[in-house]
């Protein structure tokens, strides 16, 4: 949540569409690729869970409780004799599935409301943006806690909650970008030939800000996973015996003295995935940041490991961000977007 906050804020100011060229650049970024590979491996393993894991994740076996690592149970068994490895793999389906569906929901809702606010103005804008202000007056997780706590435990309620508290930041971001796109000539042209407002909104404005929005939701995925598993850990997610990482941790809590290793596996799984999303997200963020160009010295972003060569003499940040921007944008706009924002 924390790092993406700054990114989202910045994105409101620097509007840059994604290009295929960026994808190639992303592949050169070794840490980002590592993140993507981890994500891909875990996702595939989760999809193939019934074939990879030899045991049923909810099948109990009281004669084989707290078994240690063995051939038949690669990660041992838990307090009810269930295979931990199978639970972990099947848990990935739910944990990642929830994080992904929540993120998709947040993005869709945020994009629509942000676009409506920017394109329709007046009452719609006032209502949407004031709601954004109100919802952002509380730290996200606290609001989520209240909402899910009152809606009650359950998979669907958990996802609804995350979407309800997550969309405001996206709406703010999308509105900011849409306000800029709205002023472009091609929008004017579309309006001149008589295109309706919804058509302009979805056919002309939306495609121009979809790229950055999707990238930001990817960056945000790690914190969404943390939120989902955190709420699930507190008991607001799926009920037992369904395997889910946060719920597995919560269950293992009671056996802290007897088998602390039961806490280790789901905990490591969440950490690994958040780490992978952070690595991949940092790479994506670099692609979107016009200031991260090879010639800019001392501008290493965030937590990323950078292996590019630093030039011998520091040169002032050049205007090389142009290849990331739309060609028909006026030069002033380019200069404006590569600088940092000043006021409050």
């Amino acid at each position, binding site marked *: *949540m*924390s*790092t993406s*906050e*700054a990114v989202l804020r910045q994105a409101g100011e620097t509007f840059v569409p994604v290009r295929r060229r960026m994808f190639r650049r992303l592949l050169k970024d070794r840490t980002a690729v590592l993140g993507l590979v981890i994500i891909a491996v875990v996702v595939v393993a989760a999809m193939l869970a019934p074939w990879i894991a030899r045991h049923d994740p909810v099948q109990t076996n009281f004669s084989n409780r707290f078994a240690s690592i063995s051939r038949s149970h690669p990660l041992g068994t838990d307090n009810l004799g269930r295979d931990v490895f199978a639970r972990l793999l099947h848990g990935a389906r739910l944990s990642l599935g929830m994080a992904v569906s929540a993120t998709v929901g947040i993005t869709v809702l945020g994009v629509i409301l942000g676009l409506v606010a920017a394109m329709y103005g007046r009452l719609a804008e006032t209502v949407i943006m*004031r709601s954004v*202000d*109100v919802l952002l*007056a*509380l*730290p*996200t*997780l*606290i*609001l989520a*806690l*209240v*909402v899910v*706590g*009152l*809606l*009650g435990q359950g998979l669907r309620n958990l996802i609804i909650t995350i979407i309800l508290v997550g969309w405001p930041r996206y709406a703010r971001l999308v509105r900011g970008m849409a306000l800029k796109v709205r002023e472009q000539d091609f929008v004017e042209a579309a309006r001149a030939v008589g295109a309706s407002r919804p058509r302009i909104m979805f056919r002309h404005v939306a495609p121009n800000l979809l790229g950055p929005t999707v990238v930001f939701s990817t960056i945000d995925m*790690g914190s969404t996973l*943390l939120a989902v*598993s*955190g709420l699930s*850990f*507190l008991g607001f997610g799926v009920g037992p015996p369904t395997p889910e990482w946060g719920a597995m*941790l919560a269950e293992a*809590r009671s056996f*802290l*003295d007897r088998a*602390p290793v039961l*806490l*280790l596996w*789901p*905990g*490591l799984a*969440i*950490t690994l995935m*958040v*780490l992978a999303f*952070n*690595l991949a997200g940092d790479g994506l963020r670099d692609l979107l940041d016009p200031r991260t160009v090879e010639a800019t*010295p*001392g*501008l*290493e*972003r*965030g*937590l990323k*490991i950078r292996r590019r060569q*630093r030039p011998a003499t*520091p040169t002032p940040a050049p205007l090389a961000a142009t290849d990331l921007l739309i060609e028909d944008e006026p030069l002033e706009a380019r200069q404006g977007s590569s600088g940092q924002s*000043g*006021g*409050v």
Partner: protein
Amino acid sequence: MARYLARRLLIAIPTLLALSFLIFLLVTNAPGDPAEEYARKRSGSQEATAQDIRNAQKELGLDRPFFVQYGSWIKGLATGDLGESFAKRRPVYDVLKERITATLELTTAALLLILVVGLPLGVMAAMFHRHWTDQAFRVAALMAASIPGFFLAYMLIVQLATEMKLLPVAGRQGWESLIMPAIVVAITPAAVISRLLRASLLEVFTEDYIRTARSKGLGSLQVVLRHGLRNASIPVVTYLGTVLGALLEGVVITEFIFAWPGLGLLTLEAISQRDYPLIQAAVLMAGAIYLVGNLLVDVLYGLLDPRIRLEPAAR
């Protein structure tokens, strides 16, 4: 400055009111009836009769229409009366007062940890730029930013409390019991702050005045501390608003795990007991702290960088 502050505080009031209305709406429409729970608790039996529930509703004021309930809550709020907790049958104000010290203790300790650990690490990472220490810090920060607090908490408990028996597992007795919760709350913000300060310092290092200071013959550390730090601190200060949010959020799960009797744990209890007045008050307080904290961050921002004007220029 005073006018700016006054205006921002005035804007915060309708936002908080709207927030309270939203929470009230949620709370009263949520499934689960606090009157039933209340009646059950009072009669001491598992089942409450319809008559008992009706009586309880009347006593708690839940039989009134929604807007009357909200109106009377607002009226109470205006006179400083936060109502009475359903579950504890005590004034909400007293309950909050009792719990706030524990949370303040935890957040202060965590904030100190964030600054005392995060800032020096950031300075060191910047000074050791392109050295292996910088890489080590980077990997450590990445791990610290990715590990969920609720996982780290148990790793600490298993290692420091269960195995080595150095610290108490949970509860709030003495300063030792503060160590683990504070670490759990502080770790991610400390990691992010160290990275931010590092990046910002590296940017500042390319400025002319740093070269001037160096050529005057000042030592590296002196240049960093006297010329670099203040100029590099602006992105760090902007992040403090997010730190505040992280503290408020972190406190909830951490207090739950360590049975730390603060506001976070109280909020969780209130939610599970459907204690409407307590939920309302706790959420509103968190919102107020968050808004005022962010306002302070903006003010600090302006003080650090005189180029930033908070007030619109006079016409």
